[in-house]
């Protein structure tokens, strides 16, 4: 492990949010106003994953009152409380910049239904093999 990786390892959160490009998410951001602290929610589509390790960030896009709004969140920022995934979508690009040109119904993404758990599948296969033997 090189030195920079070692330094970045200390900056990582315990668990990386399983967020993917195309997900509709709710980002909970801690905001400090003077003395008070509150949590703000930013809901939209993840159009980009950027960087890796401690520098990883996501760009979330939403349309607010007809105006497109994009915010970038460093995934390991202590201000980002959690990223709640609402739904996955079928996407064929790594960066969804094409959404910026689309409005309304055209800007929808097809929902991706969760597949069968691959870990469970393996178990059943093993059991079947054991039965054969």
């Amino acid at each position, binding site marked *: 492990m090189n*030195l*920079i990786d070692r*330094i970045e390892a200390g900056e990582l959160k315990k668990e990386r949010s399983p967020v993917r490009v195309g997900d509709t998410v709710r980002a909970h951001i*801690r905001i400090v106003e003077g003395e008070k602290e509150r949590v703000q929610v930013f809901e939209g589509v993840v159009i980009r994953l950027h960087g890796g390790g*401690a*520098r990883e960030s996501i760009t979330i896009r939403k349309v607010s009152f007809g105006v497109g709004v994009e915010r970038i969140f*460093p995934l*390991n*920022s*202590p201000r980002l409380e959690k990223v709640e995934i609402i739904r996955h979508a079928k996407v064929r690009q790594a960066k969804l910049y094409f959404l910026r040109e689309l409005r309304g119904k055209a800007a929808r993404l097809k929902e991706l239904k969760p597949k069968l758990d691959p870990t469970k599948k393996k178990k059943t296969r093993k059991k079947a093999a054991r039965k054969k033997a």
Partner: protein
Amino acid sequence: MDALIGKKVGMTQVFSKEGNCIPVTVVQVEKCVPLLRRTQDRDGYDAILVGYGTRKSKHTNKPEQGFYDKVKAEPARLLAEFRDQGVTDEEMGKPLKVDIFSEGDSVSVVGTSKGKGFAGVFKRWGFGGAPASHGHHEIYRGGGSIGMHTYPGRVFRGKKMPGHMGSKKVFVKNLKVVRVDTENNVLLIKGAVPGASGGIVRIVKS
């Protein structure tokens, strides 16, 4: 002692307690040893001679080896001096630790900038160039006129012209120390530091 020689490892980012993202340069101090004292009486000035890094003995010639034998040290990759440093006799010959700096300290960093080769006036001096249209052709990146006429009949000294750029000593003042890692002998310094990754930098408290 409030100065060090280190190696620029690269850049990354860390988060502050408030959650702000801080860009940092990682500087590793591998082996930095005060070897010799320059004194007012003998040399005309006070300074500490420091050896940085290691060098194989087969790459050290006899006069150099003689010097290292005299100060009872292993051959170093390079030698440098720091003026007016308070170093006790006990500290001489022992590798310096990064804990001479602490978080929030202001430091100056000296490094050798990346070489840019033979650069034109756009890159080297930030000239604006000529218009792209309105009858202009073939001189878009040129520097324009370099002088007047029969009087003064010469080009002034220091005229900004194309030439070699970079690979020069660059001094950056007032960079903040973000973190001191004594375990790995590593400093995290806020912002950029001159030179390429792997380059040698001097760090002085300012």
